[in-house]
């Protein structure tokens, strides 16, 4: 393509997604992302502590009303994401290809992502039935345990797969009733930024999912020290140093910390993308992850005339 032809295609500006809006990072800092053939693709926000602060604020505000929606309504909202993503899948596939995915792997990832959304949409009104309990206590009391949202959850998406890895973290949290703040893959940030547009045009209430871009090693410390974050999710492929920082730092307010195997390296996508994504798609369908980001609340009440 000639330079003139390229300019006819309007390039997209990629920004954070916070509280249903698309703000730039407060810091004004950015990093450059290039396509596999070396051309400049986008300037991506290098988020900072303040961006996390803002995201936590809106996430906290959105959480209670998300949790209090009926399970049926939550299920429909999540399903609606799949509908919209499905309609725009070719855009995502092209974006993945520009980042070096083969066509086949890009299509597989989109197919798996849409599948995963549908899968979790079906869990919203089944979690209590499968994992809740009425407990036969040895006294005249009715006693039941139900699953409840843990609250505001921070996530460090794996480096790859770009979209599926992030969804494997986000979806159990949405079903759990949490609001999420997720740091996108650094090298493959763009698809998740574009996914924010899907969320924005779907019925997901503002603030329930928030997406930031930036460097994990810069942001982990701000996540773990924030006293209004209730849980953190990361991928075990994270470096040992960062994992340890998460484990030590999350004790500040006893954040629930879980490492979910949701991803792989960017190189693996290029070399064995198909089998990696097939495996990821399968292991992501684990409803026990919903329990990881929920609390069990047990209620007692006397039974009498």
């Amino acid at each position, binding site marked *: 393509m000639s330079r003139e032809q390229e300019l006819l295609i309007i390039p997209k500006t990629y920004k954070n997604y916070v509280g249903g809006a698309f703000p730039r990072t407060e810091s004004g800092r950015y990093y450059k992302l290039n396509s596999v053939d070396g051309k400049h693709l986008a300037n991506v926000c290098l988020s900072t502590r303040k961006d996390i602060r803002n995201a936590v604020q809106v996430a906290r505000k959105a959480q209670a009303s998300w949790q209090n929606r009926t399970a049926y309504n939550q299920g429909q909202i999540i399903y609606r994401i799949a509908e919209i993503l499905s309609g725009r899948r070719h855009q995502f596939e092209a974006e993945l290809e520009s980042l070096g995915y083969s066509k086949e792997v890009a299509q597989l990832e989109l197919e798996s992502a849409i599948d995963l959304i549908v899968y979790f949409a079906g869990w919203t009104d089944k979690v209590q039935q499968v994992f809740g309990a009425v*407990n036969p206590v040895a*006294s005249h009391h009715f006693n039941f345990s139900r699953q409840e949202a843990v609250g505001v959850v921070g996530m460090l998406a794996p480096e790859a797969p770009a979209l599926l890895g992030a969804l494997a973290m986000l979806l159990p949290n949405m079903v759990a009733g949490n609001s999420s703040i997720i740091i996108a893959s650094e090298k493959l940030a763009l698809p998740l930024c574009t996914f924010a547009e899907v969320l924005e045009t779907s019925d997901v209430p503002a603030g329930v999912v928030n997406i930031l871009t930036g460097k994990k090693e810069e942001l982990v410390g701000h996540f773990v020290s924030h006293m209004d974050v209730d849980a953190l999710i990361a991928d075990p492929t994270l470096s040992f140093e960062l994992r340890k920082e998460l484990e030590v730092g999350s*004790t500040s307010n006893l954040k629930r910390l879980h490492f979910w195997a949701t991803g792989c390296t960017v190189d693996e996508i290029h070399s064995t993308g198909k089998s990696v994504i097939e495996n990821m798609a399968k292991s992501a369908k684990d409803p026990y992850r919903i329990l990881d980001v929920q609390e*069990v609340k047990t209620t*007692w009440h006397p039974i009498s005339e």
Partner: protein
Amino acid sequence: MGKRKDGPISVSKLFFKRLVRTINIIMSQKKSDSSTMPIHWEYAHAPESTDHVQYEMQYGLFIDGAFSDYDPSKSFDSVNPATGELLYQCTQADEKDVDTAVKAARKAYEEHWGSIKGSIRGKYLYRIARMLQERAREFAVLESLDGGKPIRESRDIDIPLAAAYFFYYAGWADKLAYAFPAKKVTPLGVCGQIIPWNFPLLMLAWKIAPALACGNTVVLKPAETTSLTALKFCELLQDIGLPNGVVNLITGPGQTGEYLVNHDGIDKIAFTGSTGVGKKIQQSIAGRNIKSTLELGGKGAYIIFEDASLNEAVEGIVNAIFFNQGHVCCAGSRLLVQEGVADRVIELLKQRMATLIVGDPLDKNTDVGAINSQNQLNTIQRYVDIGLEEGAECFQCEGNIPSSGFYFRPTLLTNVSQSSKVVQEEIFGPVLTVQTFRTTQEAIDKANNTPYGLANGIWTDKGSKIFHVGSQLRSGVVWSNTYNKFDPTSPFGGYKESGKGREGGVQGLAPYVHLESNVEAEI
């Protein structure tokens, strides 16, 4: 008074009759002689017999199925908090002892316990439950002697419940596949467990029963001041023939616990105690691939709405804060009472408190026993002093308390606010703060305004309000129209800084197993 005026009953036409009656009463003053004078009646001392209870004056450690010799060079004393006198001496496990214990547990796990059939593990646990029931009275007396809790509680609550936990988890040992649908369940390995002094044997049961049911082996450290029932429990394990090394007991102070936490041979730490220590433990295991469950502090709100059954609500307060001298992590230590009934509730509470008997833990009539240690007594006194400095008003039970030993009168602190230290921090004693509220939302906000989230109580006669308030409270347990109830089938554990993980119920198995996907079918 709390009025539900949904059915006012008018009998006004007969109002004047009351006047007639009053005149009648005046006219019919009855003859009175000495035989109709009210009597002063106090309950005589009713001590539980200690004749049948035996314990050693000195104990070693219980490792690999045998007691080591008591080591005077590493000795520490345990006193009877009711008198302050020496009860027995224990051996403080050092780093080497802890290592020996962990290795014994590892060996037992790998060679036997981790791979035997669940039904066999279950049978051992059933046997433990039965044996505890048979020896219940003995364990109850020892628990009261060692920890200071009233015999009424150790007899009616601690020991029977401990047996019930073993009985419950015994049944899970061969049914784990049903607890975790679509998962392959395997044990974790060696579990380090550290328990507190407020419910020594019960906490031991909460820890050991699920761990063993799932196929793990255990190294357990009881609290420094309350090792006795744990040591006796090990004697019981010898009697039932539990394989060597499956349960190992290391006595000692916090230092011993640190050795255990820092040992490389453990796969899991389960801890019940303060939030401060819990965070420290969590930091110590960072980066070591060790699972953990934590049951930590609390500052439970006890919310009384104006439509509540006030008499039962007042009795509930007694269970909530004066149970076990208030040494209860889930104690309802913050009373939130709706303004319309606040005066009457406080009045009724004071009347009820006047009937509480503080004293000898072994007296069957004692309601509030001895504070567990001089240290804890000092802590409680310090908090009450701080409360008074902050402007609180203090009401305490009257009546005699023993002159020696560690005792603290049940105490109410009124005129306090959210910002008061005594409202924010866990006192872990028989001290209740009293605040009022006007609306349901205010009650919810005040209840949740704490870093803790272990338990809360709601008192109202209105079912829909219970579900509404209950769903808004951020705590692992919600007691509605009751308080401080425990059951092996009922998961217990905290939100926020009150801990993580659950103990009890099917949920209480999860912290002791490793799960792998077992879904073969197309999904």
